[in-house]
């Protein structure tokens, strides 16, 4: 029996009554756990919009010619889908939700270093999201440039682009501040005795991510400011009609947006590195190798942006340098996969829902990674660059990687976050539909790209029809699975059976506190002894 020594720790963070009541108890709360949930619910709203737009696109593409919308609408739909999914879901994704909720608990701290700054980050997130939405609802036309805002089209388009750009800029600040907060927290607030090499792998991945957020995001901030200045004052940095260089825009954009891919995928890998040892009841294989590969990805990931621009116009030297660096960044990802699979070897595997999500994560991540090798090779890239092949590739990485890891993580940590267990059968049914639907939705796009179908295509030639039908069917199966998963979790958060403190017999610190955790997490800050560690089963 635990005895609460702090009065604020007698109830869970969900039941705690502070200075403010009702909704204000949430939106004015500086508790990292409540902020994590604030992010999760606001992301869920945006995710529903993003999925709806994705479904509309797949329905439009089920047959050549017009199906449900005209080309202008379609172009706006894929633009808003991209902006929402990239800037509001996958970039903040795991760090903002699970990072906020679990980073302090996993390293034995009561909160992050700067709780008020943490809340401010969420305000920035909401403000940025509202700005982007305002560009859809007001002004002369929804932005139709694609989420990449490529110059000079982004100057010629008559649509309401400025609020969208400003929104992306504000969202960037949310990301920078979260990164800063996590770096300081990890440096300063680890429990006594928890040396760097006793820290669990999810915080390690957040550490690598945080540095990218802090150092790379300002680049896109500056770029977006320049785009706005160019649109308002015609200063002539990017628009060739004014003497600017549109390729410069692409460089600046990808200097941020490629590392941003690692902002998305590193925490996903971190969550997988927690789930696999837990459900194998075994020490993680190659703990230091996984850390080294995390840091290698975070570092080399800065220098590969040019592979988005092989056909844009760069010198041959730049092209093959970027190509070889792209191949090198694949190696640490491969090392992680080898270590995860080796962790299962001679384990005692309990194939619960989080583990199923993790295994399918490894599968789709491998497909995404291997197709990335095709795109990294100069000759093969010439053929499939800017085709449906690229769309398939990054959905396998960004949605397959981040999405599967996110669902794995929510099923893993759910009993801790809400103190209740979900229906395990429905969780597996939802996973099965989602996985089958996902593969049916995105695999045909590899084929379409190899056949030569360009991306961002409203209409297509008849030879591309069959594969598009299959892909559209997959989108419905996947959404059906998604609904099962979400409904199951929502119902269980209210009515599920009360969960044990450590239902999966995991060894990291978050499982040593009550479920749901009390306001300040620990009554006494835990101390790591000589023999303690996050994976000592």
């Amino acid at each position, binding site marked *: 029996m635990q005895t609460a020594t702090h009065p604020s720790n007698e109830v869970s963070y969900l039941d705690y009554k502070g200075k403010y009541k009702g909704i204000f108890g949430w939106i004015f709360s500086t508790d990292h756990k409540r902020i994590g949930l604030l992010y999760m619910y606001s992301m869920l709203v945006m995710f529903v919009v993003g999925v709806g737009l994705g479904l509309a696109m797949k329905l439009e593409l089920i047959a050549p010619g017009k199906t449900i919308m005209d*080309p*202008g609408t379609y*172009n706006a739909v894929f633009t808003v889908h991209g902006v929402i999914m990239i800037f509001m879901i996958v970039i903040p994704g795991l760090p903002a939700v699970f990072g906020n909720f679990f980073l302090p608990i996993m390293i034995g701290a009561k909160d992050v270093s700067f709780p008020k700054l943490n809340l401010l980050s969420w305000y920035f997130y909401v403000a940025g999201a509202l700005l982007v939405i305002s560009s859809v609802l007001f002004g002369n036309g929804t932005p*139709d440039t694609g989420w990449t805002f*490529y110059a*000079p*089209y982004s100057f*010629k*388009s008559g649509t309401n682009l400025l609020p969208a750009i400003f929104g992306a800029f504000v969202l960037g600040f949310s990301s920078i501040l979260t990164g800063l907060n996590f770096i300081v927290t990890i440096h300063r607030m680890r429990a006594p005795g928890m040396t760097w090499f006793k820290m669990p792998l999810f915080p390690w991945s957040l550490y690598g991510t945080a540095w990218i957020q802090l150092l790379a995001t300002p680049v896109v901030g500056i770029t977006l400011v320049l785009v706005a200045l160019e649109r308002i004052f015609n200063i002539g940095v990017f628009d060739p*009609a004014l003497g600017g260089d*549109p390729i410069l825009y692409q460089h600046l954009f990808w200097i941020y947006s490629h590392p941003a891919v690692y902002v998305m995928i590193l925490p996903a890998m971190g969550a997988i590195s927690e789930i696999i040892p837990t459900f*194998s009841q075994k020490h993680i*294989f*190659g*703990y*230091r*190798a996984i850390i080294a590969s995390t840091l290698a990805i975070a570092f080399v990931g800065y220098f590969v942006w040019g592979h988005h621009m092989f*056909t*844009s*116009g760069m010198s041959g030297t730049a*092209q093959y340098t970027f190509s*070889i660096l792209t*191949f*090198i960044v694949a*190696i640490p990802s*491969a090392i992680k996969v*080898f*270590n995860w*699979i*080796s962790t*299962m*070897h*001679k384990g*005692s*595997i309990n*194939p619960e829902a989080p583990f199923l999500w993790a*295994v399918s994560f490894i599968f789709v991540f*491998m*497909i995404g990674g*291997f197709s990335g*090798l*095709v795109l990294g*090779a*100069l*000759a*093969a890239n*010439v*053929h499939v*660059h*800017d085709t449906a092949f690229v769309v398939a590739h990054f959905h396998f990485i960004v949605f397959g990687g981040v999405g599967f890891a996110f669902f794995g993580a929510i099923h893993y940590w759910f009993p801790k976050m809400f103190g209740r267990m979900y229906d395990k059968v429905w969780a597996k049914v939802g996973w099965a539909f989602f996985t089958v639907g996902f593969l049916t939705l995105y695999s045909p796009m590899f084929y379409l790209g*190899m*056949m*030569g179908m*360009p*991306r*961002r295509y*409203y*209409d297509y*030639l008849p030879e591309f029809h069959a594969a598009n039908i299959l892909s559209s069917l997959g989108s419905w199966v996947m959404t059906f699975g998604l609904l099962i998963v979400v409904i199951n979790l929502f119902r269980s958060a209210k009515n599920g059976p009360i969960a044990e403190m450590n239902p999966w017999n995991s060894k990291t610190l978050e499982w040593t506190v009550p479920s749901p955790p009390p306001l300040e997490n620990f009554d006494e800050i835990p101390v790591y002894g000589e023999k303690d560690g996050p994976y000592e*089963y």
Partner: protein
Amino acid sequence: MYILSNTTNASNFVAGVDKSFVIIMGISFVFLIGLTFTMLYFVFKYNKHKNPVATQIKGSTKLEIIWTIIPTILVLVMFYYGWAGWAPMKKAPDDSFNIKVTARMWNFTFEYENGKRTDTLFVPMDKAVKLNLVSLDVIHSLYIPSFRVKEDVVPGREKMVWFIAQREGLYDLFCTEYCGLNHSYMINTVKVMPEQQFNSWYVDTTQQVAAITDSPAANGKRIMKNIGCFACHSIDGSKLIGPSFKGIYGHEATVITGGKERVVMVDDEYIKRSIYDPNADVVKGFNKGLMMPYEGQLSDEDIVQITEYLKTLK
């Protein structure tokens, strides 16, 4: 080793590109299947019912070194084949046959050194062809899937792409950099002909003869087709990006000039201004900035003939 059998050797680059594709995909499939089956085998073999107690293994430096070195070698092999298939694309032979490609929203036009201008790319077989790429507005990307060539067409930059077509036939040519509303309709055709046939097409002046003997209206229509007017303007009254040409000549139109609405008569002078300075008067209900000025590309003589053609669209 080819990825699409129906385009085997359609150009001199197919072999190199497909080789890198097949090698990377081949290695990837071996690893994907091998690792997936290993993983599934572990999941079944070490299920908690069969193996209630896990054996704690923390790692193996030897294995880490092995599975760092092997992928490093493999990716360097992949890089090599990618480089080998791509390197010849960077420099066109000096004796290439030059064709100027002009991209605009939303079509490509092709101009030959003897002044011929078409909206289909005619090329001779077994001869190096160099396309000099020019964009008049935004970034486009010229992509001929069967030839495995692609290059962005960037305004303000000199770019080129070259190839040797090796099989007679018709091939699709796409724009594959998103360029606005009708991006997905920016499709042209490549026609590859044996060199002799190409030469007789190339020197065939019947088109020029026709230009002299045809009625101005027929000439106007051909000029408009070649420069791509009909991508955005219909002749049957339907609304596309710009207003339809049907029945506009001699009728009044409501336009926005400098933010103010006014009514103008569609006459010779108005048509000329609309072509040379399209954003001066924008027909009400349409967007500004979508059409580029055609000054320098069309002569006054061309515009007279275009006007004659528009008069016939009652």
